[in-house]
């Protein structure tokens, strides 16, 4: 049996003369026929350069051909091999095995979260694609004549959506999204990063409609800012930052009616009016006076513990006129600013 054990790497070893190591992986198995989960532990011999994906390949080739997982490019481009490694979503192909072997640590490999498991490490991506589709992941230039030649986008306008353009749709951000665990209908970090990729695109003319759709239930204001998405993304997309950019675009376009936007506005207003947050204004201005009245018994619990500051004497920081002047200055500056627009080829020719 020892010969079979190393069979998978005999050719690799020959080609690169690579040093070998013993890697141990504990894998969560899910059998769709019996609807049962179990953990299997495998030790395989792999080159010291092996990724977690290489180790899974070795297991599938030499130990258990029924092990199911997705893979394709092996170079962090296709986005197929997202899975949890020690509980955190990552690309198996981008995660080196050696650091775990050196530490004498047996990794636990399990399927991504927030998506239904089909078999072993394979999840059903259908809900993921449904949300990507919901944000219209394509350029809409219907308000312009279709040009014969290409649009001209200034480099700085491309830079605005550069990070979001790097997304490989692997689902690692969605796997650990805390809001999505609680609200499965939340559009989530991947779809919202994709949404910003088009809201911020200087060629797209559908900005206002896109933002209107994103400001409702299950939209941008569902994000709880747990930052798991930024932490997990293997490509540096930083989906949480994209969601914040969608918030800023919503404010620019006057979409400020969502409870989340109203909540944000109280923070903005508090700073230039006094300095610190006006906590007592936060509740009625976010959820509305009627709902705030319904919440009075709760507010009394807080008041009993001394947690409701006196609304009649809000905090006043020293020299806060500076901040008021700053606010006015920036608002004036922002008013004059135009949306970045791509140049229509006709305009380029004429100009």
């Amino acid at each position, binding site marked *: 049996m020892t010969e079979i054990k190393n069979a998978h790497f005999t050719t690799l070893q020959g080609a690169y003369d690579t040093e070998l190591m013993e890697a141990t992986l504990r894998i969560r198995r899910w059998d769709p026929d019996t609807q049962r989960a179990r953990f299997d532990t495998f030790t395989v011999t792999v080159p010291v350069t092996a990724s977690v994906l290489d180790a899974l390949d070795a297991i599938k080739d030499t130990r258990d051909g029924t092990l199911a997982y997705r893979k394709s490019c092996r170079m962090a481009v296709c986005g197929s091999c997202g899975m949890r490694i*020690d*509980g955190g979503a990552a690309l198996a192909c981008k995660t080196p095995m050696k650091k775990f072997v050196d530490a004498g640590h047996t990794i636990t490999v399990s399927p991504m979260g927030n998506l239904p498991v089909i078999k072993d490490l394979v999840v059903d991506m259908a809900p993921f694609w449904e949300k990507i589709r919901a944000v219209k992941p394509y350029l809409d230039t219907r308000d312009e004549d279709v040009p014969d030649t290409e649009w001209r986008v200034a480099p700085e306008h491309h830079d605005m959506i550069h990070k979001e353009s790097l997304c490989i749709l692997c689902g690692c951000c969605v796997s650990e999204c*805390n*809001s999505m*665990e*609680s*609200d499965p209908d939340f559009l989530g970090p991947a779809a919202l990063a994709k949404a910003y990729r088009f809201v911020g695109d200087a060629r797209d003319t559908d900005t206002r409609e896109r933002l209107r759709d994103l400001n409702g239930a299950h939209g941008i*204001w*569902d*994000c*709880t*800012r*747990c*930052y*798991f998405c*930024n*932490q997990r993304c293997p490509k540096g997309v*930083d989906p*949480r930052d994209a969601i*914040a950019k969608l*918030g*800023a675009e919503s*404010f620019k376009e006057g979409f400020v009616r*969502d*409870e*989340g936007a*109203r*909540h*944000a*506005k*109280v*923070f*903005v207003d*508090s*700073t*230039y009016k006094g*300095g*610190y*947050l006006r*906590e007592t204004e*936060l509740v009625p201005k976010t*959820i509305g006076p009627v709902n705030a009245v319904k919440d009075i018994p*709760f507010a009394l*619990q*807080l008041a009993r*513990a*001394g*947690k409701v*500051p006196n609304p009649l004497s809000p*905090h006043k*920081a*020293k*020299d*806060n006129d*500076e*901040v008021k*002047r*700053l606010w006015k*200055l*920036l608002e004036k500056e922002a008013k004059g600013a135009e949306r970045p627009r791509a140049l229509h080829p006709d305009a380029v020719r004429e100009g």
Partner: protein
Amino acid sequence: MQERYAYYPGCLASLSQKELDSSTRAIAQKLDIELVEMPSVTCCGAGDIHEAKPDYYLHISARILGQAEQMGCETILTICNVCTLNLRQANKALQEDPALLNRINDNLKEVGAATYQGGVDVRHLLWEVSEGNGYEAFKGIAVKSLEGLKVAPFYGCQILRPSKILGFENPDSPQSLERLISACGAEPIDYPAKVKCCGFPIVLAREDVALGELVQPLEQAVEAGADVIVTPCPLCHLSLDAWQRKAADFAGKELGIPILHLAQLLGAAAGIEESELKFKRHVTRLSPEVKAKLQMPSVIGTEA
């Protein structure tokens, strides 16, 4: 640990969570460190201003950082996760982009505010006392052993993630709170949700979504047998403490676990009086048994 910090308590510790401010001041005095007041600062924006008005957010952050600089302080000491992330995030952006910093300084000058040269660091109290000199100093003042107290650490999100802005410890298996709990003579309790979200940023705008998040650490800590939960963030504290009743109704079960601010736990071990730690300001009250384990002598029946 330094001897002198620009002290940025932030909104909550200055307003609804005053017990955190008074506990922090008491601990600082024991540790013999000077907290220099920052009377002219605004709110950090709590992520909300970053989201609504990102340019304004960078300006008010630069103004806060600049004030610390002009006070001759190298470090701003924070006691809130959200302040820590927001100030560090802005600081990184300003330090890495001289053109941005120049433009912002021009605007700050125009309104007569302090400008910022980029020389300030922002550090949370947890980081300062959980390693190095600060940790040794804390062990030196931890005169009361909280033996028998089972403490569930709850980190909250914005002191761990994103690690490229925070970066103090491994965001998936942090140990700083555990180290301090042990230094207090208490027993750290492990549970999976200790690094997850408390739901607070959306508790007003999306209460159900937030409560679905909040119940996880509360339930898990109770099931793991913890006497109390300790957190370095006053927003997490407010969520875990004040919204606990709503979370219990949401989950359909009894919870009733007291939540301590980090400075309160450290303060109890350092023998600081209850009058400064102010447990009375919690919505979920401490039972006499828990108080006894916290070495807080109290006559049963006198507590409100």
